[in-house]
């Protein structure tokens, strides 16, 4: 087993870090970007495209870079480190990933090519009110309409649902969950966007006999594909969370050294330094698990189980680090002017986007009898 990045991966990290530092190195810049629509910076998005980041995991024939999950993880971590609001995981890993898995040649060229060039932002419209983190659609239905299909129902919350140029939509038909492509300007499509607590955007997306194109050629049930794409995104979100947790911890450590009370820096109080030490422990254990899960994705192993394991570890660590970061800052931690609370907000969102720790735990609990011991090298 090997956990080090090669020179090329380190180069990618440096490049992305440089770009994002310029954009969000000062947390005021992020505040002003997330205060205006579409909630991220179109210029930064274009620069990420120029750098090849938005086509990273896709085949070169589809306009991508032909890189793998390790490179994706490097980018996601940098996104998390400065809380860049650009929807990298949502567009590239999740929506793009589904198109890469299933799309026809023409669909891949259009969607992935456009995404890689930075001219087309896709999103995955999947969540429905009353369900949680399942790979199936229940209330949005698809109906055959001549050669094509129409969709009816509501998806909510859809990440960047108002801004997205194309939606990958899950819908139920003939008892199966299938995937469709719907352009943002399709007839019978109503999108109502709003701002989330972490500065990102979501939307309510309503379909009323909206024309849709089947993603891919055949009409099989797509539950397994969705589950796997979600698992890959869970792992990528794990890296985003690692970046965020690391910044939250270093910010907190710096603050403990700088802030004086009772005539001494806070770092003189062992009750506080020990809590910082425990934050570090949680971060490193989460890092190990998420890195491992990325390697499982890379090797195309049991991706779903590995993602659950990473999810559980990151969920516990993210909550712990996020809450402690605020507490150790005291009052300033809960202000909007100061960055640390925003990290906690984002970590909380990441925790709930594709399944939280308790959810992962209950899935893992169902399988404890299937193995005597857990062997990461198996």
């Amino acid at each position: 087993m090997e956990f080090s990045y090669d020179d090329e991966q380190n180069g990618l990290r440096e490049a992305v870090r440089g770009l994002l530092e310029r954009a969000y190195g000062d947390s005021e810049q992020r505040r002003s970007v997330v205060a205006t629509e579409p909630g991220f910076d179109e210029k930064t998005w274009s620069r990420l495209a120029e750098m090849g980041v938005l086509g990273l995991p896709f085949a070169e024939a589809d306009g991508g870079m032909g890189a793998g999950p390790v490179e994706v993880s490097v980018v996601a971590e940098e996104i998390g480190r400065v809380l860049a609001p650009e929807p990298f995981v949502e567009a590239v890993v999740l929506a793009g990933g589904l198109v890469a898995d299933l799309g026809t040649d023409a669909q891949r060229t259009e969607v992935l090519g456009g995404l890689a060039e930075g001219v087309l932002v896709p999103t995955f419209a999947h969540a429905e009110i009353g369900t949680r983190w399942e790979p199936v659609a229940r209330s949005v239905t698809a109906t055959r309409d001549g050669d094509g299909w129409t969709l009816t129902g509501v998806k909510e919350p859809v990440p960047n649902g108002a801004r997205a140029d194309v939606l990958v939509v899950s819908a139920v038909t003939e008892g199966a969950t299938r995937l469709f492509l719907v352009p943002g300007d399709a007839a019978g499509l109503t999108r109502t966007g709003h701002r989330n607590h972490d500065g990102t955007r979501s939307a309510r997306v309503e379909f009323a006999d909206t024309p849709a194109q089947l993603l891919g050629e055949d009409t099989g049930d797509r539950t397994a594909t969705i589950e796997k794409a979600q698992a890959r995104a869970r792992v990528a979100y794990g890296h985003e969370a690692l970046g965020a947790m690391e910044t939250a911890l270093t910010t907190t450590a710096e603050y403990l050294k700088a802030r004086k009370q009772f005539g001494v820096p806070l770092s003189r109080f062992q009750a506080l330094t020990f809590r910082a030490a425990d934050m570090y422990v949680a971060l490193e254990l989460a890092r190990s698990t998420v890195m491992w899960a990325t390697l499982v994705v890379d090797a195309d192993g049991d991706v779903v189980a590995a993602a659950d394991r990473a999810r559980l570890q990151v969920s516990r660590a993210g909550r712990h680090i996020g809450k402690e970061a605020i507490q150790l800052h005291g009052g300033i931690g809960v202000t909007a002017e100061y960055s640390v609370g925003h990290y906690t907000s984002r970590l909380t969102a990441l925790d709930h986007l594709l399944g939280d720790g308790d959810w992962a735990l209950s899935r893992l609990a169902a399988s404890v009898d299937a193995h005597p011991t857990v062997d990461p090298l198996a």
Partner: protein
Amino acid sequence: MRLHLSPEDAAFRDQLRTFFTTSVPQSIRDAVAAHRELTREQFVEAQQVLNAAGLAVPHWPVEWGGRDWTPLQRHIWREEMQLAGVPEPLAFNTSMIGPVIATFGSQEQKERFLPATANLDIWWCQGFSEPDAGSDLASLRTTAVRDGDDWVVNGQKTWTTLGQHADWIFCLVRTDPTAEKKQRGISLLLFPMDTPGVTLRPIELLDGGFEVNEVFFSDVRVPHELLVGEENRGWDYAKFLLGNERVGIARIGSTKRMLAEAKEHARQITVAGAPLAEDPYLRARIAELENELLALELTALRVVANSADGKPHPASSVLKLRGSELQQAATELLVDVAGPLSVASFAADGSDVPEWAQVATPSYLNYRKVSIYGGSNEVQRTIIAGSILGL
């Protein structure tokens, strides 16, 4: 980045797995698995089997029996031993004093002690802690005063693990009470436990066992050539030794074995008509512990993979802290699985209470020690906060 072991490391692991499960007597491995106290003879026999195969001191210099393995191979070696229930080579010998003598000892000391230490022909014990010198080890007060060719030692040590089995003790003593920093006036002496003036008093622990002792020194004469390295430099050797003590202290293989055991037992117990193993809360607790242990194992692998250039990985301090917590959590789980049977810990012969349930609570109580010794968890947090976070 790479997921799997290289083919060479995988073959290495298989080879060790086979050796440990076939060449070390089953009765000894059963005793470890059952958390039974091992006899001195069992420890010695197991270590001699390993030593004969070149597996007792692989981390020593090659000249003295080392194998020049990578940190990853050493990790695999240790984990496979624990998984197989093989008693690890006595840490006092192989992780602590052996490497110190090999690094700082005189040629004569090396020749005299290293082969016997590797083969457990000499059983060493560690005389560091004192009643008033625990976490603050440098405040120790046992003195050694030079008298001709000898040192004369007076004072008291405590918590001396398995001192009752020991042939020799390696002992920190104060040789310069006037030194400006208390760390500076300390030296490391070696002497036989049967030297006149040494007395040992066993301390009974919570589980009823006697694994630690108080040791008293009254005018104990130790020849000068049994001083290790330089006079007044003992603190440096102690730090070197304690650094080694923390390696492998995460004991992941052993915790894995305990979790597997807990699952197995939970299948045999019925609660309201269904196996305890199906209780959702218990399953969740096991799944969470398995995941924590996975995270720790992966961290250990990261640490060994990245310490190849000699520098320890900063995350290594996580291993002792979290490793001890998970060992303790696993023993607690076994108590809870045993449930009402866990109360009958010293059941009489002929009892139907299974052995694992009888030992569950005593070993839970005994394992309270793992977050105290080898640098308490508070000391580990101090290290993380200070040297990693700069606080």
